[in-house]
């Protein structure tokens, strides 16, 4: 038996565990397709994924779309701050969390991370993401619009890409409840100077937002070629 045959067989076996589950509901998403379209100008875009690592997402963005993916699971950092009762240090931590160069990221997948952050932490994270995003880069974020209910289980959501128009939501245990939803105006201010280019309010009370960073010419004075 050739080694390639073995890998082929194992790939099939693994595909079942990695792939989106067939019986789990698929939630429609309108903004993901726009996010992907926003990356199309680059031949080998770099994506920063702030959610937990999901094998099928890595394949979707890496293999199918040709992106380089950087996975920085911030839910683990939030949990650690909750466990150690140092949540007041979270904003400062987030300020120094990302070693990447400014303007080095083409697209950022925040998923619903901001639902779990208090305002100072959200501001601190948003500032860093704005710094990392290259001009014309895109940022996808989901925001809940309903008040968190007392007594609900503490869990985060793993977003599994089914295709450009569908996601599966897989809950997993977390340490921090959702915070109060941000009003639309606060969301806008949080990410300034990014511009909201698409926004959808889904029937599930989820607000999907796509931000874009202004091109260099729009944010900085043009430099003459002779300079």
């Amino acid at each position, binding site marked *: *038996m050739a*080694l390639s045959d*073995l*890998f082929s067989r*194992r*790939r099939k076996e*693994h595909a079942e*565990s*990695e792939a989106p589950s067939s019986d789990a509901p698929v939630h429609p998403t309108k903004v993901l397709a726009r996010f992907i379209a926003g990356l199309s100008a680059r031949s*080998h875009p*770099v994506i920063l994924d702030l959610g937990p*690592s*999901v*094998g099928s997402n*890595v*394949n979707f963005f*890496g*293999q199918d779309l*040709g992106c*380089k*993916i*950087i*996975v*920085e*699971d911030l839910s683990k950092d939030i949990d650690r701050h909750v466990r150690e009762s140092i949540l007041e240090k979270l904003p400062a931590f987030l300020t120094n969390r990302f*070693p990447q160069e400014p303007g080095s990221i083409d697209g950022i997948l925040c998923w619903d991370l901001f639902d779990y952050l208090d305002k100072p932490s959200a501001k601190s994270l948003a500032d860093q993401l704005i710094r990392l995003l290259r001009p014309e880069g895109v940022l996808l974020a989901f925001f809940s619009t309903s008040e968190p209910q007392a007594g609900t289980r503490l869990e985060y959501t*793993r977003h599994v890409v089914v295709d450009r128009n569908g996601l599966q939501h897989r809950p997993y245990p977390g340490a921090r409840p959702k915070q109060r939803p941000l009003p639309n105006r606060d969301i806008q201010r949080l990410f300034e100077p990014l511009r909201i280019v698409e926004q959808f309010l889904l029937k599930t009370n989820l607000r999907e937002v796509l931000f874009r960073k202004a091109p260099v010419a729009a944010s900085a004075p043009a430099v003459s070629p002779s300079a």
Partner: protein
Amino acid sequence: MWKRDEAVKPTSGQPATPAAAASTQPVSAPVAVQPEARRIERDIVNIGKSVVIKGELNGSEDLTIEGHVEGRIELKDHVLTIGPNGKIKAQVFAKAVIVLGEVNGNVTASEKVDIRDGGSVDGDIISPRVAIAEGAHFRGSVDMQRKGAQPGQQKPAASAQPEKAPATTAAAPQSQAAAH
């Protein structure tokens, strides 16, 4: 050759050999590594969980690591399996890498990187195929488009800087091992 899965199962807390049980100190010379570090199951070479290797590990056959390795691992055309007890702080170059233990460092594979449930990788992956199981931990970047960088071309990860270990070439899995 197809007993690989058996080879990576936890070895029920038993060291590979009685000699390996006594050897809990870092090994600095390849000569010392060979008799203690390797357990042979047909043509699978296994570095037992009590073995510590600091330096460079080159080989030309499949290898399973249950011990600790710091530095650099190069199995150009072969499969490297990091067993559940394996802890690697190294740059890794192989044809395929299967991770059930912990890897801290960049991983370059010409065919596939497979992080199984319970496996952990902190570092950048370059490979045309990557599988990450749901219970796996991964932090770093994945580049599936770039051709596997040649050993020596890849930037070392900040977190995986090997200590200034002697350039020990534990010419580990050698063909004579497979003959047993």
